[in-house]
């Protein structure tokens, strides 16, 4: 028995050693390594042809054949947009019909050796943009009909009322206002457009009708503003001092605004999205800020814990102007022009939900008549317009100077800083029933480059509002 046990153990040992023996025959052949040289980031206007001709360098001149594949897919999954092979040629030359999306696309280039099946991959990023990629929406009224024209940034090309042209319709009534907003999942980017005879919702990329907007109120020209909350989960409209809201948390295509939110208030037409989850408003009746939480229609006065530099619960002043300041995630700056009972004007500021600034405006000609305001997003400056004149207010120096005077008979309707460069002041102006747009480039001191505008665009009806359409 003992002998048998030894024999068994020896057998196991030999078997184990045998199984570990390395006796395999590998035949190594050096691969033909490929190097793909090309730019990696591309931008293309939807429906234009994207051309990429990468240089492919082989480590060995073997004369091997290759197959090619170009596959495009969103950088983050988007419902309804699936990966698709758009070419099997060495060089890409293909019209891109995929819709513009904020996160852009990956384009995977795959070169495969036909003999051994080894592939080399290279990843490109592609940003598909729209013909209307970014620019200004000009709400105006001509011959009793509302229009929403578009001025494209960069080349200042004007598209006459594209929403009406694309959808073969006309917009009745007077233009009241517009805003742009994304769906919660980021797959849609729309324009909401209001007239005093109807509401419209367009896809920003092509201006096709993308749903309906239902309101219980009639937007009032020059007394109307609407815009979304920070995350586009709620939509707000202030019409003649009254607040209306719509939730888009269900992400439905159609938007239904509520009845007037209950309360005793008369709101200034400005929607203040200075914090992530709370939107603020200003009540000129009781001279206080009010607020709404995310996905809540409980409009309530703010409770202020400080009076320094001012109390948001009781400012004691009327708001006559409001401007977006620097946008930091979580706490955005806003500036407000306030007026006391003596007609004296003050500049107030908040950051997020905190009052940060209050200063009586001094040494500023025509400030008492100013109706349009825009805050510099670079310097401690504010631009204001009174009649046909544009002034620069230096906040630190607490004094203003005249920068530019538009032609006699022109009245500036609205001032805004172009958000994508922070160095362009955009002025919408009316001369009777015709509208004009002026684009002033701002230098490092806040003055206008060449003391004049860089571009003037004419041919609009009477402008009621302008809205910036950002890139997707």
């Amino acid at each position, binding site marked *: 028995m003992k002998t048998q046990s030894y024999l068994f153990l020896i057998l196991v040992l030999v078997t184990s050693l045998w199984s570990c023996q390395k006796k395999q025959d590998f035949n190594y052949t050096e691969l033909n390594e490929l190097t793909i040289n090309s730019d990696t980031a591309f931008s293309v206007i939807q429906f234009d042809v994207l051309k990429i001709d990468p240089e492919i360098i082989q480590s060995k001149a073997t004369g091997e054949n290759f197959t090619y594949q170009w596959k495009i897919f969103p950088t983050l999954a988007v419902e309804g947009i699936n990966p698709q092979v758009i070419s099997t040629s060495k060089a890409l030359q293909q019209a891109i019909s995929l819709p513009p999306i904020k996160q852009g696309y990956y384009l995977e280039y795959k070169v495969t050796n036909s003999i051994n099946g080894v592939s080399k991959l290279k990843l490109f990023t592609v940003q598909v943009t729209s013909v209307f990629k970014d620019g200004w929406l000009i709400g105006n009224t001509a011959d009793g009909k509302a229009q929403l024209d578009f001025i494209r940034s960069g080349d200042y090309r004007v598209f006459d009322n594209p929403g009406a042209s694309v959808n073969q319709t006309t917009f009745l009534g007077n233009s009241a206002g517009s805003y742009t907003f994304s769906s919660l999942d980021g797959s849609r980017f729309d324009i909401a457009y209001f007239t005093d005879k109807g509401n419209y919702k367009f896809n920003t990329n092509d201006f096709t009708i993308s749903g309906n907007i239902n309101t219980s109120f009639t937007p009032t020209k020059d007394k109307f503003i609407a815009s979304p909350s920070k995350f586009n989960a709620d939509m707000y409209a202030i019409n003649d001092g009254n607040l209306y809201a*719509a939730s888009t948390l269900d992400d439905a295509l159609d938007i239904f605004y509520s009845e007037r939110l209950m309360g005793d208030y008369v709101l200034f037409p400005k929607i203040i999205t200075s914090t992530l989850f709370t939107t603020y408003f200003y009540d000129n009746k009781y001279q206080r800020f009010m607020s709404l939480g995310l996905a809540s*229609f409980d409009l309530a006065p703010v409770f202020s814990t400080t009076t320094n530099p001012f109390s948001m619960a009781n400012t004691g002043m009327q708001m006559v102007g409001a401007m977006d300041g620097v946008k930091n995630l979580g706490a955005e700056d806003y500036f407000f022009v306030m007026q006391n009972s003596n007609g004296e004007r003050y500049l107030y500021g908040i950051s997020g939900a905190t009052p940060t600034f209050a200063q009586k405006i001094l040494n500023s000609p025509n400030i008492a008549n100013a109706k349009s305001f825009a805050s510099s997003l670079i310097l401690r400056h504010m631009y204001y317009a009174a009649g046909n004149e544009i002034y620069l207010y230096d906040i630190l120096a607490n004094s203003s100077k005249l920068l530019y005077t538009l032609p006699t008979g022109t009245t500036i309707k609205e001032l805004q800083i172009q958000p994508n460069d922070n160095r362009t002041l955009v002025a919408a102006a009316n001369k009777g029933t015709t509208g004009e747009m002026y684009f002033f480039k701002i230098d490092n001191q806040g003055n206008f480059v060449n003391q004049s505008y860089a571009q003037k665009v004419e041919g609009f009806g009477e402008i009621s509002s302008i809205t910036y359409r950002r890139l997707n």
Partner: protein
Amino acid sequence: MKNLILFFLLAFTLGCKKDDIITYQGTDGISFYTNYFTNIDSVNYSFALQPQVKERDTIFIPMRLEGKPAAVDRNIKLRALPGSTARAGIDYSLADIKLPANQLKVNYPLVIYNTPEMSTTNFKLILAVDPSSELVAGAPGLATDQSRNFAQMKVQITNLLIRPAYWDFIEYAFGSFSVTKIQFMIRVTGLNNFGPDALNFAATLNMQVQLRNALAEYERVNGPLIDETGNQVSF
């Protein structure tokens, strides 16, 4: 020694045997079920909440198969469990139905009658699969999609205004339930179903605003609206 080696070889060979995949074996069953958003084991029905007067109505109760679909229709029979106060043939009737061939789900049509006693009484009906049913009672439990199977389904039938089972889902918008409140809601909106199956979140918030405004107008004319428990109605 030879035997020992043979033993090991046999053991290794057997050890390598591939098992068959275990599949469900047993009698096919049928269960009541609700999805994640309506995960409740009861249905409350009030004739008083209907848009028009009804002598009878049908409540459709979702049921689903536990087991394999079959190529033939299979019989489903329900019964009332002890504890039920509703009267068979008077307040309700239970029909034998079939799960259609190759189907996984069916809505059981519970027929209920608006009897005079319902004006003062809330009848309870506890339903379960009858043992004589071709599809036996399925096992209760939670599915991976958070839907839930129930062995019993409780149904309350009345002509009184009662707290709907969905009220938990809308309490954030309309506050606590009262008969006075829901009567006011029905009168203002013209609706009788305020549950999440009828109103999405946006519509619920809009209705909250509508009801607040209507209540403010009511109070301006009539003073506070007081409910049956003495509390002031609010939204």
